[in-house]
């Protein structure tokens, strides 16, 4: 029971997970861009990875429902 309920409760935050990962991706990219002076290269790459990662994460969480 304990193994199942923990990850299941992550579904509470599934709505904000996609947006948070997108924001975190763009934010991290922005930070790296300022650091390396490469605007807007990493912001776009990491932002894209954040969106893809968010979709994978949400899909993974919701797949456990079925």
């Amino acid at each position: 029971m304990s193994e199942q309920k923990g990850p299941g409760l992550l579904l509470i935050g599934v709505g904000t997970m996609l947006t948070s990962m997108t924001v975190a991706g763009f934010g991290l990219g922005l930070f790296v861009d300022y650091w390396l002076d490469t605007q807007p290269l990493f912001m776009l790459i990491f932002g894209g990875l954040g969106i893809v990662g968010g979709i994978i994460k949400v899909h993974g969480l919701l797949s456990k429902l079925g």
Partner: protein
Amino acid sequence: MSGSSSGNETVEYIQHHLTNLCVGDCDPVTHKAAGFWALHLDTVFFSVALGVLMIVVSARLGRNLVTGTPGGFQNFVEMIIDFVSGQVKDTFPGHNPMIAPLALTIFVWVWLMNFMDLIPVDLLPLIASGVLGIEYLKVVPTTDLNTTMAMSLTVFALIIYYNIKVKGVGGYLKMFVFHPFGKFFIPVNIVMSTIEELAKPLSLGLRLFGNLFAGELVFLLIALIGGTMAVGLGALIWFPLQVVLDLGWLIFHLLVITLQAFIFMVLTIVYLAMAHTEDH
């Protein structure tokens, strides 16, 4: 009263209520923080005061515990402790004596800070300006992004601490290198895992802030119905409407504040539980 001046008053009213009592490095015109050394005194005061209230009430109750047939308040507190303890037992693998007290503290403290939203929006700012001469006062600490992000970053620090404690530095870093696409996409894995980790405190802090800020805004808009529209006989219509809407939103918001405190607590337990397990 012309339409534009009424609109300006409305905007001013809302802006005034959403402005913190800022001291230190603050903008003299907007009264918003202008640098790192700006302190939102109202947020600090109310969050610390509620924390102290929680400690004092708990200590008093702890000294006067009754076995057998406890009183109503002790029953109520025991019910909350049982509820949180049940959540921790169901969610958290293994044993860590810090998790349940941490979860209980988060739940009660966040709930108390959220509860400040149910106090009539004009009451405390009016008292503060009338009695103490304080121009700006924002009474709900969780409608300040600084509070929610401070709490979520503290949880994030605990997540990193327990990850390193349980998995070791090497084990924790391995998680960044080989997750989620395996050994052939190491640079992508590092970026994706970093984003995933950063998303945890972001989602925790932004969710709580967003819900409470929106709730506060709705209370302000309802307060405006009686405040700016009620002139003469119009008050006979607008004032009862304001009372009904306020009551409705208050009852609904009571659910929201409890739910948001519960979500913050549960996700903290789940994230810490994930930090305590060997797999990702």
